[in-house]
């Protein structure tokens, strides 16, 4: 056990010294202000137009309802808009502003939009090279000729990876909160958000809807994002074991993640696509109550799919790593 802790320490220090995490923080510090600025521009432009948020919300509802009447928009978009209209209506009816500008709201929105691509990419920065870099750098020979069983070394790497995934997510939320707070103010933790919307066909079932504080919503969202980020991390980990070059494993995983977000947007009538891990990554849709990419997907379903993929990836990683010959 003590030895295992030392192994985890080694791996953690290695990733840190390689400045992977520093790069991620730099990327966040460069990109988040851009998003904050864009959001600020949107807020400013709508500020002059409407008497208050209710008028703005009413207009949004009307505009989205009008879009629904067009025959040209695809059925899936319609469903999405129906859900949105009914949610906005719910907020309006209860006199709750769904768009108060504050740092917590911004962070929630940012996380929601980042879960499909941005966060997986940051996770890949660590996950894709945690094993393959040892092989391409040749250091794996030093690592595996020490009197430690191979599975222990791999397990230490896996634990390290999970720790960094957690660190990346919390850092992302923290940077987003701190930067956007400069513009939108640091409040908003206790503002209400409605959750529990359920879509039944094209109708929104609001019986289970209840209000929670925005801060709690952020925590819940982070938890769900963590689960999908872990799945990406573990699958990237497997690819990193299978593929010797870091670049190849990064490209493979990026292709998988990006094709997932494309597939999810195509909202295909290809129903079996819902068993792919990459269309299940956006767990926050269930929290928001917007329609899932493919019909029949629920929170439980997506969690199960991600869990099966993760376990399989871990199984393959260990099976291969403990047996494989280090030829070069």
């Amino acid at each position, binding site marked *: 056990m003590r030895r295992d802790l030392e192994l985890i320490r080694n791996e953690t220090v290695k990733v840190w*010294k390689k400045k992977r995490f520093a790069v991620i923080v730099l990327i966040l510090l460069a990109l988040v202000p851009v998003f904050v600025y864009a959001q600020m521009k949107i807020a400013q432009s709508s500020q002059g137009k409407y008497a208050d948020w209710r008028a703005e919300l009413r207009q949004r509802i009307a505009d989205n309802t009008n879009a629904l009447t067009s025959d040209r928009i695809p059925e899936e978009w319609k469903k999405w808009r129906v859900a949105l209209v009914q949610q906005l209506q719910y907020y309006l009816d209860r006199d709750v502003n769904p768009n108060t500008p504050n740092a917590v709201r911004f962070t929630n929105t940012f996380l929601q939009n980042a879960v499909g691509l941005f966060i997986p990419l940051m996770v890949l920065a660590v996950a894709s090279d945690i094993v393959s870099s040892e092989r391409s750098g040749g250091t794996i020979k030093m690592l*595996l000729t020490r009197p430690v069983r191979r599975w222990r070394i791999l397990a230490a790497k896996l634990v390290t990876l999970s720790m960094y995934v957690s660190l990346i997510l919390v850092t992302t939320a923290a940077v987003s909160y701190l930067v956007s707070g400069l513009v939108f103010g640091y409040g908003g933790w206790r503002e209400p958000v409605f959750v529990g919307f359920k879509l039944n066909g094209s109708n929104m079932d609001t019986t289970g809807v209840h209000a929670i504080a925005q801060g709690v919503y952020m925590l819940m969202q982070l938890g769900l994002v963590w689960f999908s980020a872990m799945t990406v991390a573990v699958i990237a980990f497997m690819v990193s074991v299978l593929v010797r070059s870091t670049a190849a494993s990064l490209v493979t995983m990026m292709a998988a993640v990006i094709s997932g977000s494309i597939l999810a947007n195509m909202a295909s009538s290809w129903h079996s696509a819902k068993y792919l891990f990459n269309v299940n990554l956006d767990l926050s849709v269930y929290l928001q109550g917007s329609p899932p990419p493919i019909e029949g997907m629920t929170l439980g379903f997506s969690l199960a799919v991600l869990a099966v993929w993760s376990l399989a990836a871990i199984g393959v990683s260990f099976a291969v790593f403990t047996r494989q010959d280090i030829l070069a």
Partner: protein
Amino acid sequence: MQKSMTAENASVSVSSSAETERERESRVLREPPVLSVEHLSKTIRGRKIIDDISFDVRAGEIYGFLGPNGSGKTTTIRMLVDLIKPTSGRVLVCGEDVNKHPERALRHVGCIVENPEMYGFMTGWENLDLFARMQEGIGEARIEEVARIVRLDSRIHDKVKTYSLGMRQRLGIAQALLGAPKLLILDEPTNGLDPKGIKELRAFIAELAAGGMSVFVSSHLLSEIQLLCDRVAIIDGGRVIAVGDVHDMIAQSEAHTLWLFEDPEAGRRLLTDDPRVEVADGDRALLDESVLLALPGAVPTLVRQEDIPDVVARCASAGVGVLAVQRVVPTLESLFLTLTGGERDASGS
């Protein structure tokens, strides 16, 4: 520098100082081998890379592993340290099966497989610290000690990516020595080192062995092995073709003699006509090119040592001035020729 290495090594060599050479030898023979390779084979994608290799390495001996590039040296070494699983046969280190119980067997092994790759983004100290944590009972004191032994203590807190190849090699050795191993495995350790570095390394290895450590050194250069090792296993095409004392083997093989004349044409004619001399030109010249370059225009021959004075006298009487006559160490190629009875195709390595 040589001196400091020796001085530091006093701490490593605990048992040797007290006993005489003979005592040591007899003790070593009584002990079980440190490394024992038994009928090792490896098949990769249906091709037999290693075919039934067996040899033993005893305590305190420097054991050479000689073979041309591509003969299976590296594959064998990787099997010794559990990087590659053998298809059949086994490797025992101090009686422990490397493949079945690597966590026990590898405790006694320090190794550098091919290049000594370390983490360039960390300092030498951090690298050593990292590997020290993977094993029981290696403290800071030991890290400092090995850093001093390989004379890296002045640069140990610099990033490894700023190290020269020689320094990396030394850091690799420091890493291998961390756990005070009984067996040190070095794969082509002189690759990329300058002559001074090679010389230092040789002396260093000798010191380690004198301290009771067994050292297993692979090389494709016979001269290297000859200078360093007590015994040798010669591998070719995945099979061990000979095991034994290096000096005995070399004595058995043909040695070349180079002749440099004032008038090369006349000299060559003279040698060709002499029945005791065989001119070994072209393909038959199994010599290191560097040797030929040192004596440009020299005629390589095979001739028995006792015949040389007479041949020189004949040359002198025929009026052909002899500028130099040089015996050269046999190359691996010529050793092979001896060992395989000339069956092996000389150009086929």
